[in-house]
């Protein structure tokens, strides 16, 4: 895994991204999802989270949870269609982990992918870099 710095934001090359600033790491038919370094920096201090519902079947682009920051409440969207199989319960007590380690311990949920073709619609690290450069 390598990381690319875009101004003060970090983008990792071993995962895919969404237009709504989630990252997705795909391992077989499981997708691990969190919000990007860019998203957490824009939101500033994260003080709360509503985690997705386990076992829930979700569609790509559907809001599944909420991140509460001092600045705003931001929806977390599912990047792919699938079934929520695990959530990062530790974030309920320590939501600030998303600020400290957005790509690691700040992961938010895991999804069992039901439509692998949707991966094509996600942004490559290069495309995500273009997006945050623009915004």
């Amino acid at each position, binding site marked *: 895994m390598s990381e690319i710095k875009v101004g003060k934001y970090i983008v990792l090359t071993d995962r895919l991204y969404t237009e709504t600033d989630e990252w997705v790491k795909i391992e077989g038919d499981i997708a691990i999802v969190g919000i990007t370094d860019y998203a957490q*920096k824009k939101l*500033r*201090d994260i*003080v*709360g*989270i*509503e985690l997705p519902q386990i076992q829930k079947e979700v569609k790509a682009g559907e809001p599944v949870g*909420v991140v*509460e920051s*001092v600045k*705003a*409440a931001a929806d977390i969207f599912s990047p792919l269609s699938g079934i929520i199989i695990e959530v990062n319960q530790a974030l*309920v007590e320590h*939501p*600030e982990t998303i*600020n400290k380690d957005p790509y690691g311990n700040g992961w938010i949920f895991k999804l069992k992918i039901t439509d692998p073709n949707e991966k094509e619609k996600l942004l490559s690290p290069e495309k995500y870099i273009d997006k945050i450069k623009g915004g």
Partner: protein
Amino acid sequence: MFVSPLYDLEEKIGANFGEFAGWQMPMSFSGYIEEHMAVRTGVAYFNLSHMGRLRIKGNLKELETLIAKEISSAKSGEMIGPTAFLNDKGGFLDDVMAYKISSDECLIVTNAVNREKIIKWIISNSSLDVEDLTFKYIMIAIQGRKIEDILGKIELKPLEFKINTKFLNYDVFLVSRSGWTGENGLEIWATVEIGKQLVSDLLKLGIKPAGLIARDSLRQEMGFVLYGEDINENTTPIEARYWVFSLNKDFIGKDAIIEQLKNGISKIRIGFKMKKGERIIPRHSSKIFSVGNEVGYVTSSIYSPYLNRVIGMGYINPKYFFLGYNLSVDIRGKHYDIKIDEFPFI
């Protein structure tokens, strides 16, 4: 957009900037929770150079009719405040701090957003001379429970100030024993050049930089209001329970205040706490309910790092103002319990 003279220095030490009242100001450095706790358990400094600072000269009896607290009875070297400029309906034009230098000279600190409005208000309602010092000096606050451990004993009593004095061997324009965090502290005005050196020295002494988000969370724990969020031209001191006036003298807005004291008010500011563990934050204008009935709205809310729970304030119909009573707040269509509590929260 105005940029504070401390911008370059604060950028180097990791400031996360944001816009506040037309100024590019540091919102946070290491994160507001850490900065907030630095004030409650140690010491931090805040850059407040965006705040409006005015020097008023002339017959202060004229100012007396424009401002809600008594100026003439105060001693020179004492702060009169917080006080306010009110409109004739008793609504806040601004809440300010006033510093009496002498019988014909006074300093006023306004909210950044109201600086120009207050200058115009004073000029159009008096023959007082108003000099805007905002861009001449930087302003910082040094706040925290352990300030005397680092800077030594503070000789000034609360709300006392000195002008043209020394601070850490620097010639500064003003040092006052005041602040907006509820902790022991000082506020200092200095020229830009001295201000930069002073901040560098404070950092070397281990004083942490803190941003405007921590200032906001600290003032909310104390139940202090923020202009534009919790008070505005349609809110009176009675409704806000903000005792910034004296009925022993005449001032613009007094009649409206007396009318409210005689006949009552239609809204009152409350403080509330959410349940422990509820990490959901009501936003400005979120509606407040009593058993399903809409009775008010939220004006400020934040996660309190000290109490480890969400706190806030808002206005409700006074008929429902029972301390300890549970109301609810609508957040994204769901209702969450809030308990009415008294200020300060800590």
